[in-house]
């Protein structure tokens, strides 16, 4: 599990941004990547793999490993670590392989 460090006294806290993850509301800090928000919310897994269907989550946090792929506002295969949270953003865990949408 992960937690957020307490903001030092006197420091203005960042704005809170509310997203949903599979329909559940998650409050995040403005400027968070989706992946950071998932960790802070106690969700280290965000998808099931395309090959064997096992749980996976963000691994490298720098756009290299593609293990953090999620659906964002209906678009599949989005890198959670490369996408910043936005009010009202709908994040969905990705279960297995994507289908081709024509």
């Amino acid at each position, binding site marked *: *599990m992960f937690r957020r460090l307490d903001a030092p006294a006197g420091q203005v806290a960042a704005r809170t941004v509310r997203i949903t993850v599979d329909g559940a509301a998650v409050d995040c800090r403005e400027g968070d990547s989706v992946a*950071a928000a998932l960790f802070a919310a106690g969700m*280290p897994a965000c998808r099931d793999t395309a090959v064997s269907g096992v*749980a*996976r989550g963000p*691994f*490298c946090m720098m756009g290299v490993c593609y293990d953090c792929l999620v659906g964002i506002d209906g678009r599949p*295969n989005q890198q959670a670590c490369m996408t910043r949270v936005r009010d009202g953003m709908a994040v969905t865990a990705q279960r297995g392989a994507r289908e081709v949408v024509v």
Partner: protein
Amino acid sequence: MSAARPHEGARTAAHHGEGAPVKQPMSTTCELLVIGAGPAGLAAATRAAGLGLDTVLIDEQPAPGGQIYRAVSSTPVQDRAILGADYWHGLSLLEPFSKSGARHIAGAMVWAVNRQDDGFEVAYSITAAGQEPQAGLLHCRHVIVATGAQERPFPIPGWTLPGVITAGAAQILLKTSAVVPTGTTVLAGGGPLLYLLAWQYLNAGVEIHAILETTPPGQWRQALPHAWGFLRSPYLGKGLKLLRAVKDKVPVIGGVDALEAIANAQGQLAQLRYVVDGETRTIAVDQLLLHQGVVPNTNLSRAIGADHAWSERQDCWEPVVDAWGATSVPQVTMAGDGAGIAGAVAAEHRGRIAAVHAAASLGRLDVAERDREAAPHRALLARAIRGREFFEALYRAPQNFRRPVGDTIVCRCEEATAEQVRQAARMGCQGPNQMKAFLRCGMGPCQGRFCGLTVTELIADEQQRHPRDVGYYRIRFPIKPVTLGEIATLPQTQASRDAVVRFRK
């Protein structure tokens, strides 16, 4: 710097003027394109603009800094004692850059660089908040590739489980969002970053259960011949102080020979099994943070066609570059860790040297001016890399953690295991490219970034060949996954229209 936010960068780049719609196709021209806004790229772009080159710096992240200075202008971790002075040094690169006149395209993923007439055509994508990704084209005469480093693959059983992340990833969580582990956290592997992260966690009041050191206990003997350089290194005192601070507070278990992450019923990390002195121990853990060094991120330099060579000292591929960073491809120069690991301070100086070289190769400086301009950077670079060989030998990733066996996953994307790769190699598989046909390894979205080195080494192991002879995946553009929809947003040229119209009746 003419833009800070992605869509503004895109708009500026599109030359449509203020108020133009973002959806317009994006295209721009410049003399020098610098790819990557870490220390090398920032320093290169600043120096090049100072030499009068029309320069664009393009980068994937919303703000410059690269991974080493990630979020340095926006981090919520404002107590400077936590991340330390070396991190905050990154700020000193930002202001000169913003005043340099170089343009900045932020939040842009470069996916192709094609040679064209007297230069290059570069394709990239920007995804503005809540919008479809938009692709753009950029034309330039010289490219400085400053794509930096990534974590060396650390293929142990269970390294794919949720709950296991790289130490670099954990550090990015701290820098960007002040998100830190809670519960039982173990750091495992070796190398300076592992201890730097531990030190930063201690500064932030984060509890670390243990550090499992995989560096063989006798490895300092291999490093000893390089000790002279290390003893004169400007970073010696600082490094030892940091190491001592960590070892005072965190149990360090040395000589760990094997590591295995074990899942619970939900498929998430629950236990860590490790072997030390022939004894197997199992502990309950919440987080496992892995690190065994960093390696150059070579996908772009390979796709561009630059020659690469196997580094014996660092057990990885490096682009072949001269003292200026020039590659085998004319007008393509590399700077920073992407050209071979030497660290963040060296990266800055290598960036400036590359910029001077670019200015000379574009006819702005003659040879004498070039050498004179580069001299101070060379002196500082020599100082910055003093003692590197010692570190490389001391923290060399052990063979048993680079060349896995059995069911350990090698290719995270396609879930190919070490034994599958080894078996294919025993059957006579010729190399990494044929391995794709056997197992699909290297064909997932990461495009071999987390399996390529391991596949090369496993084939070398099974066939008793040298990694240099085994070779690497052939990397082609696009070097990151793009959708057809993205490609369709590219600006159209007469040539691209003709290519389609030709086939019309």
